[in-house]
Structure formats: structure tokens, C-alpha cells
């Protein structure tokens, strides 16, 4: 089947771009709050104030003449990530995993010279990767250490988790795995694998690449049926707390799991995409309706997470036919 029917999509509660722009972004995300999430430095400061774990900031560069100090700034660290402060969609991110004799190594193993990094930084400063091409700043962050759970499920990049938070309630989650086809990036339309994650348990539910179901990672051949995201409760609470931090009602929270420090927020998105529905094989609309039907928003992120786990847990797992836990045990377990 090449096209699906409108009726089918509607019955599944799939939200389309127009509905998202109009009913979610337009309704819940006041435009004046966008700078909080579009500027990653602001997000980071806000998160630190709110006690939310974020990757450590190693340094920032604001002007072209700062580029000369780059070598000194980087000399202390062998691993770091260079990001545009106002970048979007993972654009302009340079990851260095090793420094040796004035050569810097990318995760792919390619060695680059300092001049390459300097050029990358000056491109960012000129606004090459920022929204609307405006001049930008550069931030250098500590590199996240991949959690061993994900080691078998990733090609080059670090898997990140996208949680959709509506009015403070996590309603859907997806794990994004870089593949060889996606060139180590976590963008679904470039061939990264999206794995729908059960809100109730953190277990993998369903996985897609290029919109079609897959059952194991295309590069490592590991089946997704064994995949469970650790620190699930902590992770959801972090995501839920971002609502108080930003006041954005429809928020995409990108979270990575660090081997040592656990879940941390790397990016917030005020216009999260809709592929998460394909990865979960479920529509957002019924969950949006449940949250919208609430009379008031519980001010406590932990209670909100419990509500979400109760209401949005998967009834049936598509890649794990048998149910191992019930909702109650799942939520009880996550307290431990």
C-alpha cells in the first residue's frame, strides 16, 4: 500500500503537521518563549537553576577573535562536543572523542586538524547553522559517555531519547539510534532508527527506519525486543520538570543517558516533529485529549509522571508479544 487512508489515520489518532502547528504549537507555545529553547545556553542556565542535569559546559565563544583562544580552551580536554548555540535539528554539531598530537579524532575515526575545528567554529559564529542565518555563538560541552545498555544499539553517535511533554505530562517517547545510513546522526528522515518506548515501562515497543518497521538495529543486528531504557522514572521526571522551566505546553525534550551521571537534558524543542507516532505505532491525539481533559495541571512533576505511566502505558507490545509486567508492578518498580 502506497498511501494510507485519512479514515485510518484519524481512527488511530495520528496528528498531522497542520493539526500540530494549529492545535499544539499555536495553542500551547507562545512565541515569546521560543528563545528559551532556541538558545541552548539559556536553556542550559535555566536547567541548572532548576536543578536539572545537563552536560557540563566547557566554554563558549561569541566573537570571531575568540577563535584564536580555541587551542588553549581545548587543550585541557581530550573529548568534547562543539555546538552552535542556536542550531536546530542537530546541525553543526562536531564531536571529538580523542586528542592526540594536534590531531582531533571524530567518532568515525577520521582525524581533523585544529584548523578544521577553527573553521567549523567560525562558520557557526557567522550563523551558518543557526535559525535564519543570524550570527551565533559556540558552546563547547563535555562529551557524554555512552551507557552500556545502548552500546549494542548505536552506530557512532550516542542514542538520544525524545520525550513529548504536553502541559507537563510526558505523553510519548522515542529512542533515536544513529545508523550507518544516517551517517551517525539521529535524524529519522536521514535513516536513523526510531524506537517507540513504552511510557509505562521504558521498554521498546516498535521500531521504524524510513517509516517501515524494523526488528533489529540495521548495523549491529541486535534485536530491539530486549531493549529497555534504564533510569526510566528519573528520565520521565526530568522531562516533566522542563514544563515548569520553560512554560512551553508542547515540548520535545531530548535526553541522553550518561554512563556516569545518568539521564541529562541536552536540548529542548518547541516544534517537535511527528515521526514519534510512526515509531510508537500510535497517534498522539488520544493522549493529547486525555491531558486536555484534565481540569488542572498537577504542579508536582513526579505525580504527573505517575499519571502518565498509568494512562499512557502500552496495552500491547508489538515486538514483545508477552506482557511481563502489569501497569501496577511497573509503576511500583520504578519507584525503587
Amino acid at each position, binding site marked *: *500500500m*502506497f*498511501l*494510507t*487512508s*485519512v479514515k*485510518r*489515520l484519524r481512527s*488511530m*489518532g*495520528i496528528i*498531522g*503537521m*497542520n*493539526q500540530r502547528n*494549529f*492545535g499544539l504549537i499555536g495553542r500551547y507555545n507562545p512565541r515569546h518563549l521560543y528563545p528559551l529553547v532556541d538558545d541552548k545556553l539559556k536553556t542550559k542556565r535555566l536547567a541548572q537553576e532548576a536543578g536539572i542535569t545537563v552536560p557540563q559546559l566547557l566554554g563558549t565563544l561569541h566573537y*570571531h577573535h575568540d577563535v584564536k583562544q580555541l587551542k588553549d580552551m581545548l587543550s585541557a580536554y581530550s573529548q568534547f562536543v562543539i555546538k552552535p548555540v542556536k542550531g536546530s535539528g542537530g*546541525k*553543526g554539531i562536531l564531536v571529538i572523542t580523542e586528542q592526540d598530537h594536534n590531531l582531533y579524532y571524530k567518532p568515525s575515526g577520521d582525524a581533523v586538524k585544529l*584548523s578544521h575545528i577553527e*573553521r567549523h567554529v*567560525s*562558520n557557526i559564529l*557567522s*550563523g*551558518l*547553522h543557526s535559525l535564519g*542565518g543570524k550570527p551565533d555563538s559556540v558552546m563547547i560541552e563535555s562529551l557524554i559517555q555512552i551507557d552500556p545498555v545502548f552500546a549494542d544499539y548505536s552506530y557512532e553517535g550516542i542514542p538520544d531519547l525524545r520525550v513529548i511533554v504536553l502541559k507537563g505530562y510526558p505523553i510519548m517517547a522515542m529512542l533515536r539510534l544513529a545508523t550507518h545510513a544516517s*551517517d551517525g546522526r539521529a*535524524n529519522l*528522515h*536521514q535513516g536513523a532508527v526510531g524506537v517507540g518506548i513504552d511510557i509505562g515501562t521504558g521498554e521498546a*515497543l516498535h521500531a*521504524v527506519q524510513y*517509516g*517501515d*518497521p524494523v526488528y533489529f538495529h540495521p548495523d549491529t543486528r541486535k534485536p530491539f525486543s530486549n531493549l529497555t531504557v534504564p533510569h526510566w522514572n528519573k528520565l520521565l521526571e526530568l522531562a516533566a520538570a522542563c514544563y515548569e522551566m520553560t512554560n512551553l505546553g508542547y515540548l520535545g525534550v531530548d535526553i541522553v543517558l550518561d554512563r556516569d551521571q545518568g539521564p541529562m537534558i541536552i536540548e529542548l524543542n518547541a516544534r517537535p516533529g511527528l515521526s514519534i*507516532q*510512526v515509531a*510508537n*505505532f*500510535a*497517534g498522539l491525539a*488520544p*493522549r493529547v485529549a*486525555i491531558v486536555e481533559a484534565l481540569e488542572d495541571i498537577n504542579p508536582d512533576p513526579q505525580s504527573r509522571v505517575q499519571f502518565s505511566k498509568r*494512562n*499512557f502505558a*502500552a*496495552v*500491547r507490545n*508489538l515486538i514483545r508479544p508477552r506482557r511481563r509486567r502489569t501497569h501496577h508492578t511497573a509503576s511500583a518498580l520504578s519507584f525503587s
Partner: protein
Amino acid sequence: MHASARLYTVVILILFTGIGLILYKHLALGFPLMPDEKKFVWTIEAKIDFQAHGEPVIVSFALPPKEPHLTFMEEDFASSDYGFSELSSDEEQRRVQWSKRSAQGAQTAYYRLSVYENDKMIESPPSDDPLPPQKPELDEVFLTASLTLLETVRAKSANPEIFTRELIQTLNSPSPNQNQRLLRNDKAGENYKTDLILNLLALEGISARVVRGLFLEDGRRRQPLTNFVEIHDGQKWIIFNQDTGKSGKPKNFLIWQRGGQSLLDVIGGKNSQVSFSIIQNIHSTRNLVVNSGMHTQAGLIDFSIYSLPIEQQTAFKMILLLPIGALIVVIMRILVGIRTSGTFMPILIALALIQTTLVTGIVIFLIVVSTGLLIRSYLSRLNLLLVARISAVIIVVIAIIASISIISHKLGLSQALQVTFFPMIILAWTIERMSILWEEDGPREVFIQGAGSLLTAVIAYLFMTNRTVEYLTFNFPELMLVNLALILILGQYTGYRLTELYRFHSMGRHHVSDKR
């Protein structure tokens, strides 16, 4: 849903205003809704020449009657240093007079008339009452010949109409008998024949008069007026061709003057003559309506784009097409869900395509952009700052355009010269965006967005070059309101986009879901 109720009120208001204005212009002011209605407008110039000899000059000239089925767009009178006045305001017998205290040598006066047949009125014969026929004074021989001729004709006819036709045919017979030859006097001119027919009709007691008119044929110069004979059969006037006897006014025959008054009188001059030249113009009905609207000061036309100078009007023709392009972009993005690089870049490409024609434009666009991408990929290795790089791309684009022009000119491909119609900055930006897209999202995304932009541009182009669309947008700027209302409604559309039916196609595969 307070906000949406308000929106729909606004939409309906805008929609009705727009449609109302369009209907008003169509129904009350006569604007045609389709561009194909064309009218022939005749421009007739009468040139009056005479020799003056230093005495006071008065020139009096008959003008064509204003008949209801004709619309006189313009009448001009020109002659140097002459006093000028219109003599009678009578619609039937209009005369104009030029005068001067003293004039010497060759003199010329002009009268120019632009006229077209409107379709408000059906042409009707004149309704004035005839004068009783006056018995002509003829010498004996002539009278006898006339009476004999009338005798034969009368024997073959039943009423004045048949009588007249028979009379004219007999007079024009190719094998005249002696009688006819005497009357006819083949050496005399057209006016003689007219007088002869009128005299014979007067002898028979039929009221008749001469009708002078002009056959309207494009590009004629130095035309004389043609004489017709008009008789009154007791109820109505009937017009006859004096050479063939056929009754009825021929097509494209403009009646200039009825009755025996002179066409041109010149006092204080000699060798006077008048000659006519005729040009046919094709005007759209719209122009004519606008013109007559300008004269009658219809507010909607007086305060409209038509009141601007022609040059600005042409610019507006283009500008008024933009909303159509915008509508196409809205439809393509909201309903179809096609991704384009830059929201309104497709419209700008479409505008360029209008100048270059479709195929040439697309080929040029592809050549310039792909060459630009190649060079841009080299520039990206040179380690340049963004602004410098875009500037470099602009210069490269100009160089590409120049070389395309020169090479194609040498090869004799004149179409490629139109490359200059593409806005330089747009091309440079397109190349820059595409190459960033290439680096970050891969060639697939470049292809998708590039194809999306071109497709949208081509569709917008097809609409914007449609003659009907072009005509409607320019002549009914009110359509913009309708367009605006449509866009406002589309802005409320929250259903699925067409491409989303593909994007979510795997959702239709099996009936499993975890919704609660």
C-alpha cells in the same frame, strides 16, 4: 470557539465584499468576466484641404450623426490658428465650423473620430418624417425620357420599395437602351447618378434623400464618401445602394450625413476637398468600458489602477499576479505538504519563468544552480566566512550567467539570453541554501526540496500565465479579497496533508495500536 467564529465572520465579510465588487463591475459597469471579448474600434480621420486667398475663411463641415448603436469614444478637431465651434447640437445634423480672419495658401483641417458598435442597442432606421417630394425642373427631352422609363419600371412594381429597386437596377443595366443612356450620362460622376435617382423618385412622388457614408475598411486612405439613396415608403426609411439596387445598410458602413445639405462648405477658399482615412484597432471590451468609465467618472474606475500611468499599470499587472502565486504556495504546503526551499522562493522562480518561458527557464535554472553548487562545494573548502562566501557565490552566479549568455549567443540560441531575468540574489541564495542542505542533510533532501520548489514554481507559473487568470487579476483586483478569504480559510485547515498519507503509510499496515 470564539476566535474561529470571529475569523469566519471576517472571511465571509471579505468574501462578499470581493464577490460583490466583482459582480458590480461586471453587471453595472459592463466589465466582461472573460478576456476574449474583443471589439473593433474604427479610427476615422477626415482631412479637409483648400486653398485660401487672403480673405476671411469659414469652413463648415458635416459630422456623422450620433446614433444609439454607436459609441463615440473620441472626437478631435485640429487646425492651426483657426477658431472652432460646433454649430448645432442636434444629434442628427451635426456641423462643425472653423473660421479665421485671414488665411493664405494651402490650409488643412482635421477631424478625427474613434467609434465602435456597442451592443446595447440594435441598429434602427431613422424615424424622422420625410419632406414632401419636390418636382424637379427638367428640360423637355429629359422629362420625356424620364417618364418613359418610369412607365416601364412602374409596370413591374407594386410598392415604393420594389419600384426603387427596379428603377436603380434598370438605370444600372449593363445593356442600356437609348433612353437609359440619355438619362444616365456615363461620363458624369456618382453625384450625378444620385441626383438622377432622386429626381426620378420625385417625379414618381416618392420622398427620398441622399445618404453619404463611409465603408469602413482597415488601412484605407484618401477614401471618398459613398452615396446611398434612402426612400420613405410611407412608414419607414429604406436605404438603397445606388449601384446595385440592394436595400439595407451594408455591414461596416458608417453613415456620415443624411439629406441634401452639403458635406463641406468653404467660404474664402477654393479647391476644397475632403478625404478620409480609416484604421481599425482591436480593443478589448474592457478597455472600452474603462474609457467610458473614465469619462462618466464612475468612482470605482476613477480611483483604480486604471488611473495610473500605463507604465505603472504594467508593473501592477505583475504584482497583482503574486497573490495567485501565494495561494498556490499555501495550497502546496498546507494541503499537499510539498517541502520547498524557502517559503516564497517558488513565486520568485515563477516570476522569472514568466519572463523566460517555461522550458528555457527551467533548463537555465537547473544549469545555473547545478554549476553554482559545484563551484560552491569548491568554495566551501577555501575556509571562508559566510558573508564572503555568499558574496563569492553571487559573483560566480553572475559569471555563469554571463558565460551562458555569450556561449548561447555564439551558438545562435537566443532563448538562453533570457537568463538575465532570473534575479541574481535569488539564484545565489538558492545555491547557498542548497549547498548547506547538501552538506547537512545529504543530496536526497536537496533533491526533494529542489524538486518541490520547482514543481510549485511551475504550477504557480501555469496559473500566473493563464490568460484568464492574468485578465481577472488585473481587471478585478477585488479578486485579491476572495484570494485572501481563501487563504484565511486554508489557514484553519488542520486535516492531514496529502504527503502525510504517505509519511504515515506504515500505520495502515496492521491493525494494532496502543491507544486507550
